[in-house]
């Protein structure tokens, strides 16, 4: 248990650093839209399956507000991460991961299989990015812009999330 706590703290720091020191510095432009690359939702996806949903929400707020400090956008990443934390438990169940099974504390690629991990992370990542741009634009007048940015950002973020899953090998 203690080991798992350490692993999650380490993952938190690693993902925040990767996000702000590398991914934030890469300019991605698609048809004149500047897009962000999202990797840090991986932290929320990989939290232990038995984490209470209240804790998921608060941890979502924590990682979101940490990134907001570096992105100068108070509340935007936090809003998206709170949402991702909220839907994580439901999306595990939706894609057939037994959340009560104690044998797989971490829903990682090695534990639940690449196919399931890919589907769960696609689901969470897409909604995470969508909520991010809703908070960013903060009005539904620009719904077209929100959708284009969401899809564009998802297309470039998803390979990064999968690559991270392939490189990291969490078995615990």
């Amino acid at each position, binding site marked *: 248990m203690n080991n798992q706590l350490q692993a999650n703290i380490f993952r938190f720091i690693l993902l925040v650093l990767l996000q*702000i*020191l590398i991914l934030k*510095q890469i*300019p991605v432009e698609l048809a*004149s*839209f*500047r*897009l*962000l690359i999202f990797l840090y939702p991986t932290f929320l996806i990989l939290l232990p399956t038995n984490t*209470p*949903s*209240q804790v998921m*929400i*608060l941890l*979502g*707020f924590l990682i*979101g*507000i940490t990134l*907001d*400090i*570096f*992105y*100068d*956008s*108070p*509340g*935007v990443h*936090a*809003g998206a991460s*709170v*949402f991702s934390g*909220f839907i994580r438990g439901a999306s595990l169940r939706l894609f057939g991961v037994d959340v009560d099974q104690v044998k797989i504390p971490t829903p990682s690629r090695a534990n639940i299989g690449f196919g399931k991990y890919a589907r769960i992370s696609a689901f969470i990542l897409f909604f995470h990015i969508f909520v991010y741009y809703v*908070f*960013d*634009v*903060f009005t539904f007048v620009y719904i077209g*812009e929100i959708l284009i*940015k969401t899809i564009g950002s998802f297309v470039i973020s998803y390979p990064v999330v999968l690559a991270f899953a392939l490189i990291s090998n969490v078995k615990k």
Partner: protein
Amino acid sequence: MRSLILLILKRSSLILFLIMELICALLVINYNKKQNEIFLTSSNFFAGKLYSTLNVAKEYFELSDVADSLSYENEMLRNQLASSRYINIPFQDTMRRVLPDSLGGDSVLVHFTYIHATVINNSVASSNNYLTLNRGRLHGVERSMGVVSAHGIVGIVTAVSNHFSTVKSILSRDLKVSGNIFVDGTPFSGSLTWQSHDHRFMNMDYVPKYAKIEQGDSVLTSGFSTVFPEGYSIGKVDTFFVPPGSAYYKIRVRLEEDMTTIRRVYVANNLLKEEQLKLESENE
């Protein structure tokens, strides 16, 4: 009452979720309005330090760009030197009046001083974009000062800490800048906003349609506000049209400064600002 408590306990994660989202929404609204949530921005000490360290590494890769922009500025400054002008008229006295250096006493006041700064954090992807500078209160930077670069205007200082400051970029939906287009020496002023998602363009309104503007005309700062000095380049007219029934052009302005790669900037300190604002407030 008991059933209410049971309901809250049963739905506690949903309620917590809604409360947290509300907090986030308040943060977003608050930040855009008051622009002084210094604690949560990268002008706070920890984030600022990390970005300065990263900046040291990034600078090595951008040295040639920096040298380009510095030599461009040197060129402009040299153009302003008295020695770089050839006095073509016999009446030397008339010419001297034009060059402030040659006038003594109180006839010329310093209007703006500049504090040079380096951009250590920058964004262009959001609807309201911010930059972080490595200069703060200790260097004389204050809120609502204008920030300019070698190629144009950059933004307005919104928050200051001791060593860092954050700047609301001109690429922000709730920022307005007034600008002039000169047609045959006559300035036509209009209002520039950033309505698109494209970091290369701004939109300009309220230029009357009888002004004969052309593609490629320069847009300069008007100096109406106390923020930016007069005559700084903003961009060039890219496309324009008159909407049916309107008396004004809708102009798309191509920015001169590439906001994505901006590094060296100057914070403009208006020394006569308080006097101007005080006078203007007397009319209200």
